[in-house]
């Protein structure tokens, strides 16, 4: 169907008395869900989980296929999506924390603008930091006894999501030396298991899948979670790990760590951008309101499935899935980092790791 006939049809429908119930029907269509990462990452897992559920919930049960467009740390795919104007519901885009951070840090490759896009669904995750047993024994809810120890951490890069743990440890006064260049958090855990690294962090699903077992066997001691956000935007204990203190609590208990001021505001801003709203699904800019409503309803239906909690635990964790208005608010939260926080982080990245970011 060309754009003209589609427009003509739409006009025709609008002219009929039943315009109010004009329904979007996607039967026979193929919806492409573009992920700016390779087939192997967490975003792929996330999209592959939602795709068949979304297909069932959309009117006309279109085929939903996940397409991968990796490159340049996800900025390639996001730049591509910025150019798309197919607002007929046959294209959605999934972004992640790794897409958000370059945007927030004014990476020179970023040519996309989050505020142009229409968010329809968002989901978050948490993170847990843990220590090797010797250091774990010294950990008493504060990092005071850890300050004279040397830590090694396998990191994916200081400008990625690893910014959040690295900054947190620095604020606690810990001496953590990142070894850069690993390809995924799983490699970081392996480095920890081999004894080459002695501190590590995993997102919730990674922690439950591998690290929890280490803790059980006494080979690791959980230190803190990044926490979760309550309705008012306060950091509270992560619902998945109610027994592990949050970074906020540890910071309060540690000498010299402040839960207010420049450093704290910057950390919190980047935590909020990277974890509670880690993955978002977007429709392109200029999408018709009816299509948006259809998608919101479809994701709403997915979220309300009886078995959703059970089947989603492993892929999205026990965290809220935001839909529609909620996704809109989530996006606001994820992308509105105050200038001071950005400047603080950029200065820190330059001084600690020699990373120069323009702007």
């Amino acid at each position, binding site marked *: 169907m060309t*754009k003209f006939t589609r427009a003509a049809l739409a006009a025709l429908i609008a002219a009929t008395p039943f315009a109010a119930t004009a329904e979007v029907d996607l039967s026979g269509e193929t919806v492409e869900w573009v992920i700016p990462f390779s087939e192997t*990452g967490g975003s792929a897992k996330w999209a592959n989980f939602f795709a068949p*559920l979304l297909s069932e919930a959309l009117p006309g049960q279109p085929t939903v296929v996940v397409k991968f467009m990796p490159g340049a740390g996800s900025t390639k795919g996001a730049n591509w999506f910025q150019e798309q104007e197919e607002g007929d519901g046959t294209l959605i885009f999934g972004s992640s924390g790794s897409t958000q951070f370059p945007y927030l840090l004014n990476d020179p490759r970023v040519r996309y603008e989050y505020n142009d896009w229409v968010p329809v669904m968002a989901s978050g995750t948490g993170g847990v930091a843990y220590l090797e047993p010797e250091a774990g024994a010294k950990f008493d809810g504060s990092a005071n006894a850890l300050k004279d120890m040397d830590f090694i951490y396998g990191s994916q890069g200081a400008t990625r999501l690893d910014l959040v743990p690295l900054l947190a440890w620095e604020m606690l006064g810990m001496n953590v030396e990142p*070894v850069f260049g690993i390809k995924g958090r*799983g490699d970081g*855990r392996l480095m920890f298991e081999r004894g080459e690294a002695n501190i590590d962090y995993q997102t919730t699903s990674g922690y439950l899948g591998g690290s929890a077992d280490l803790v059980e066997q006494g080979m690791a001691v959980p230190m803190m979670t990044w926490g979760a956000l309550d309705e008012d935007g306060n950091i509270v204990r992560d619902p998945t790990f109610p027994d592990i203190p949050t970074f906020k609590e540890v910071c309060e208990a540690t000498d010299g760590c402040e839960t207010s001021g420049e450093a704290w505001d910057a950390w919190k801003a980047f935590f909020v951008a990277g974890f509670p709203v880690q993955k978002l699904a977007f429709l392109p800019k200029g999408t018709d309101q009816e299509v948006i409503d259809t998608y919101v309803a479809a994701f709403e239906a997915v979220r309300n499935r009886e078995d959703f909690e059970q089947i989603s635990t*492993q892929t999205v964790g026990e965290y809220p899935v935001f839909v529609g208005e909620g996704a809109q608010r989530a996006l606001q939260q994820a992308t509105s980092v105050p200038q001071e926080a950005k400047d603080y982080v950029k200065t820190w990245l330059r001084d600690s790791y020699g990373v120069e970011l323009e702007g």
Partner: protein
Amino acid sequence: MEMIATALPALSQAWALILQPMVLAYLVLGVVMGLAVGVFPGLGGIAGLSLLLPFMFGMDPVMGLALMIGMVAVVPTSDTFASVLMGIPGSSASQATVLDGFPMAKRGQAARALSAAFTSSLFGGLVGAAFLTMFILVARPIVLAFGLPEMLMITVFGLSMVAILAGRVALKGVAAAGLGLLVGTIGEADAGGSLRMSTYDIPYLIDGLQLVIVGLGIFAVPEIVSLLRQDRAISEDARLGAGWADGVRDWFANKWLSVRCSIIGVVVGVIPGLGGSVVDWIAYGHTVQSTRDTSEFGLGNVRGVIGPESSNNAKEGGGLVPTLLFGIPGSGSMAIFIGAIALLGTGDIEVGPAMLRDNLDITYSIVWLLALANVVGTLLCIAASGGIARLTTIRFTYLAPFLFMLIAFAAFQSGQNFEDLLALFAIGLIGVFLRRFDWSRPAFLIGFVLSNPVEKFSNQAVQIASFRFRKSFEEGMEYVFSPIVIVLIVITVLSVVFGLRQAKAIAAEGEVPTGSKRAPLVFLMVVMGYVIAALINANAIPDYNMTDKIVPLVVGGVTLAACLVLLVQMMRRPESDAVFADKEMAGEDADAPHGLWGTLAWFAGLIAATWVVGFILALAGFLVAFFRIRAGCGWGKTLLLSAAGIAFMCLMASALNRDFPPGLLQDAIDLPWPLR
């Protein structure tokens, strides 16, 4: 004893799970789909598994596993077709197979090479599974013993294979490997994010070049061009000599070699982070070292097929260990596999440390489904090999346009950029000249493949070692020179010594004539020019990002030194010296009825036309023009063959849900799918 007590019941449960008619039917279905995808060069397990993913949700776990494993298991088997018949390395698993497999096909022994390869694959797969059944129970501490220094040493061991594959002039091999390493560093550095030989204005280069493109460019493009110029069939006298039964006999005569290479495959496959990229080269190296008469290697020695092929299926089994025990995928397809397992059934099977304890029966089912899939896949492949081998008797001019079509499509799949095609052409050009001047192409590829691991492991190992040394000298030494590292150093040194002794006899490009000095000298100068540019570029990286510049500087320095010595040699030696090897001087290339540039121009034309009107329209024009003008077909045959090519391409792309490269035309107007 305790181990056996846990293993046996789980093993029998596993067999009970596997031996159900539905499970076996799904396995066969997966195998057939895997074969269909795998014969396509450049498309492998990842494309196939992505195709299956939508169906995995909520599927019965064992059936889902059967389907997926059937698909994954046969990819290293089926990509042997492309390696042997066309000289195209189908995936990283079958690069070394090209070295002897393709020359065999040229001698009319394609069926023999294929069946030897498949029998070895089958055997390797079974040995791998048997070994794993026991090994998986004790694997965890062994895998954890492989830290960064150990992995670095294995990578260096892999690099030492260059000594065997360097060709007649060892220095050229070193320079080729160095060039490969340098090309591998192009793009954004993993550690500090510095750009090397690239800029933000060309985003394509930032991610570096893809292995698929380099493999196709270095091996496939030069061979296709050379065969096309000679305008004959792949098999020299257009006949099939030895049949498939000979291949099986060859395998039997070399069964111990096959056993040893299978073990190499499992053991190297087990180590996470290395993937399969070095396995086949190490196996090939071992094959050469353990053979008394090496004169036939590179010209069609069947042992050169049996070694790598025994290792590559065994490697898939070994790769299961990091995947299942640690939840860390050893390869791209394993990563999707992990993701898909979480979708199966109620989603309560999760790979990771708990897998052995909670799901040992499922673990064993996976191991033996893999072995079983190998059996099914191999039998199908052997049955088909006699027929498919006939392709080598067809006049190559009829095959070439389809091969250009396939490699262009495969290259585009790696990054979905138009630049993928340009990169393929550029690397292809390098490949053509490496071949012409007898610079070892395997050495270049080994360098490229190992570039990233060398850099990553050396940087990380140095960082951690310096941290240990700061604590105390003993602790540092203990970390760097662990028993495993020392053993690996000894093996590497022995391998280089033996390798250099054996290498003299190996001529990967056959006898290469020598002639004038000018052309080889010009090529050397061009290579040196690039190396110097890369050195200057790396040196410009600020010092606080030392991790990003040290490897390019060291490798570039060594390569430059090798080039300088070659330059001196060229100035002093006579024209008849091997250093002046040039295939255009005499022999089949020089006598070919068609010129090099005219033949390359056809491929360049396809790419240029794609840039303007998009792939499918360009392909249509290319196929018609090629068959009509170059092949001299009548209109009827021309149109029939072109239509078949396009229909095949569209069918494949739609089944795999892949796009074609768009051109300027597509930017300007909206077209329906295949043309889009």
